[in-house]
């Protein structure tokens, strides 16, 4: 069956015209997941029974003429989203057997629309990582080259889309966790503006940076998914009550005269030549489409990674305190008292990178260090945000690489955390600025690995990113190329 290479809209049309049922579609996906997952390690939990029940319900809804565009469409979730009754591990031993007792808002919104949820996807433990190698359940493999990383932390979400093991997925992005794996796996990934999508029911890593977003095969699919999950949620005090535009309706028209900013700090010596080649070609394509290239400056870029690793780890050290073995999750209790129970449970439950970040964050918040680290990082963060707002006075969007290199081989950076942290050097600033950014396929390396471009937009200007990205897709075919290790048949 060729359905697994279609777009959401095309599939929706087939469902509406009864060319196919959601059950058939879901069974087909489940079969492909069953056949491919051992090799790619993308799904941590496959929700066969639940998915089929959702598919049947969707078919009934379609029959009644009550279908939404997502009704009956098989999707999957990063294992950071709570989905009622389903195991939610967050890639960690400490939550290995945690069954979510409620739905996150994003999941509830997908369910309301009648989407089919196939299962939960691999990720770096607690979303801390850039390669998926920090998963307690083994790294997901890149469908373009199984010896390479998927990127992270939403590696499973990117790989599932690339391997045609779901029509679209949800990820989360704290410092690039949607965009970087999207780039490495050749899919579209959007990190919305902070506050655009509710964080309720999404396991927190760094609360002031975390944002939920879609990972899809095309920009149009991305627009559909974003429209489904975006919008104010009274359960999340940081979600913003502004109108959600019709993202699909904005995908028409040309981009003549659009001003695209090229930040000089991002195009420095040492950029991987293949990445540079792809970005240069992307610039040429946009120029051909009538866009205007403008050099801009984001002067505080150099401080972004350091700033991020103080703020994110500080928040994480507090956010992860609740995994204490008392009420849920792993408990190791040898009867040596409360403090030992805490120590042993957390020692056994958390992996090395999570422990490293908890320690970093604890240190950054400690009495006597707070001002020098956390507070200073917050000030730098303000400067970084101001850099962007100033640049957006001159341009509509900013174009940059997503990652310094294409996907790297598994194991290459696992012993060098600093090198790993630098994987996110181009994506972190958008999180610190709280604005939206999208990664979309822009080309390939000589070895055949996908390379993405990043479009950074003004706060709440997701529609602009989608429109520009869509225009790019109309004249390129990078997004529709198929990975060699693909679950779905073409």
């Amino acid at each position, binding site marked *: 069956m060729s359905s697994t290479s279609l777009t959401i809209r095309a599939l929706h049309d087939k469902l509406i015209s009864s060319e196919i049922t959601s059950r058939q579609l879901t069974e087909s996906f489940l079969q492909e997941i069953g056949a491919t997952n051992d090799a790619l390690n993308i799904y941590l939990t496959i929700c066969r029974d639940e998915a089929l029940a959702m598919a049947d319900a969707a078919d009934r809804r379609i029959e009644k003429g009550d279908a939404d565009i997502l009704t009956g469409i098989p999707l999957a979730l990063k294992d950071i989203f709570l989905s009622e009754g389903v195991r939610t591990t967050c890639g960690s031993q400490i939550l290995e057997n945690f069954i979510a007792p409620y739905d996150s808002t994003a999941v509830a919104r997908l369910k309301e629309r009648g989407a089919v949820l196939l299962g939960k996807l691999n990720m770096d433990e607690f979303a801390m990582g850039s390669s998926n190698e920090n998963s307690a359940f083994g790294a997901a493999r890149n469908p373009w080259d199984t010896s390479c990383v998927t990127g992270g932390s939403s590696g499973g979400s990117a790989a599932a889309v690339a391997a045609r093991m779901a029509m679209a997925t949800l990820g989360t992005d704290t410092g690039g966790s949607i965009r970087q794996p999207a780039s490495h796996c050749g899919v579209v990934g959007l990190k919305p503006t902070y506050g655009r999508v509710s964080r309720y029911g999404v396991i927190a890593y760094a609360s002031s940076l975390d944002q939920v977003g879609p990972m899809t095969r095309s920009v149009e699919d991305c627009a559909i998914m974003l429209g489904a999950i975006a919008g104010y949620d009274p359960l999340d005090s940081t979600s913003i009550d502004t109108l959600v535009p019709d993202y699909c309706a904005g995908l028409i028209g040309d981009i003549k005269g659009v001003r695209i900013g090229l930040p000089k700090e991002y195009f420095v010596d040492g950029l991987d030549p293949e990445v540079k080649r792809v970005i240069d070609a992307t610039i040429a394509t946009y120029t051909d489409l009538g866009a205007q290239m403008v050099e801009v400056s984001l002067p505080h870029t150099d401080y972004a990674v350091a700033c991020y690793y103080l703020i994110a780890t500080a928040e994480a050290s507090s956010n992860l305190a609740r995994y204490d073995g008392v009420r849920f999750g792993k408990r190791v209790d040898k009867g040596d008292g409360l403090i030992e129970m805490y120590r042993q449970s957390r020692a056994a439950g958390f992996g090395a990178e999570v422990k490293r970040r908890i320690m970093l964050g604890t240190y950054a*918040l400690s009495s006597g260090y707070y001002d020098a680290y956390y507070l200073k990082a917050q000030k730098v963060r303000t400067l970084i945000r101001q850099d962007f707002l100033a640049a957006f006075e001159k341009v509509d969007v900013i174009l940059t690489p997503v990652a310094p290199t294409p996907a790297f081989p598994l194991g290459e950076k696992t012993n060098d955390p600093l090198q790993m942290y630098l994987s996110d050097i181009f994506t972190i600033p958008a999180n610190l600025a709280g604005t939206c950014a999208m990664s979309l396929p822009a080309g390939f390396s000589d070895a055949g690995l996908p390379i993405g471009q990043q479009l950074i937009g003004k706060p709440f200007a997701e529609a602009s990113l989608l429109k520009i990205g869509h225009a790019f897709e109309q004249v390129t075919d990078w997004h529709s190329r198929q990975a060699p290790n693909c679950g779905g048949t073409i």
Partner: protein
Amino acid sequence: MRDKYEVVIGLEVHVQMTTRTKIFCGCSTTFGNEPNSQTCPVCLGLPGALPVLNKQVVENAIMTGLATNCKIAPRSLFARKNYFYPDLPKGYQISQFELPICEQGWLDIEVEGGKQKRIGITRIHMEEDAGKLLHGDTPESSGNSFVDLNRACTPLLEVVSEPDMRSSDEAIAYLKKLHQIVIYLGVCDGNLEEGSFRCDANVSIRPRGQKELGTRAELKNINSFRFIKQAIEYEIDRQAELLEDGGKVIQETRLFDSNTGVSRSMRGKEEAHDYRYFPDPDLVPLVIDETWIEAIRTELPELPESKYRRYTETFGLQAYDASVLIAEKAVAEYFEACVALFDDAKSCANWIMGELSRRLNDNGLTIAHSPVTPEMLVGILQRVADNTISGNIAKKVFETMWQSGQEADIIIEEQGLKQVTDSGAIEKIVDAVIAANPEQVADYRAGKEKLIGFFVGKVMQQSKGKANPGMVNELMKKKLAFPLYGEK
């Protein structure tokens, strides 16, 4: 020995609010239900759950700030206080640290000699309470601890005073005043035993005349005014003895045991936690505009001080009576309900402070549960005022009313208690009494005028209390003064 030292006391009070729901979720705050029956993902600290601030909590905090003369911050922040404990589900308490909602307030208290003293309030902030640990006490459960999170996430106000108090009496006066205010505002039920109003006291002493403060000890979680006084007194003695013996007070947290009257060290300064406070990224800064503050100010209930002025100035009550009536909000409300129906404030006050409160005390009832309502009580007072019954009969009517719940008029009617004001009828009895007691009459006329009470008493007895005592008195005097016509 103590007199050499000056005592310095600052108080931190945790006021548990009476909001219907918790501070960051919609769970009920009802006390005493099945453990963990009032919980949800938010107050259980489940992964992914997020706090949403309860607006009523903010309004209560603003009210309390206004009533204690604080400045209300136009922008305040919530912060996380990080520490591990099984009753703290998230591993941090959401509180306020930098930028609390209220700052720089004060309360005036009455100190020795009836003078007023101003006690500064450093800050008031909002925070969530923790859950409760229960330790197993049955054979199967002993050695185990159980966590009840019904109380987790219930709203608290922490009111921090300046170190302005100089004796345990001043500390108690301040606490009582604050206690009275939060109850008047309806912010707290004031129940000390259930922990609705908990106090930590910072106590230090210094040689009189010394400027610098001594090292303080913090006394934790004391739950009655009496124990607070005891704990402070004990602490003053302990510190004075230490210093007298050439020792030094160390900074520490101490727990007071109300059974033994002794406190013991809980943790020293070096064991003090580093709470790693930082602004809670899950909550946006709280912005309060002047319009909101003014709206709350106009709806602020009348506070005890203003009631006191009104009672003494408008109603003409004695200072003592006014202070008794305002001591409890419910009593003041009862009094005002009576006055609204009956304009003799003095007799309303007398009855409430007299018969009613005696009866309530005997039955261990609060005024809110009085079987005699203000309307019913006024029913009695009106009949006294219009001379239908005498003051003594009124007490009888009150007793019956307390027992039966009947209205005054019905009781008076059914029991035939209506006062006799018919002078003919009274005169008959007076004559009969004079006729029946010739010896006493002679004594009276010989100058033993004290006997008038005897005669009036006899008449009242014979009339079953119903004769108008004034009339009886007057008539009796008249008749005893001059021999009646025909009398031998």
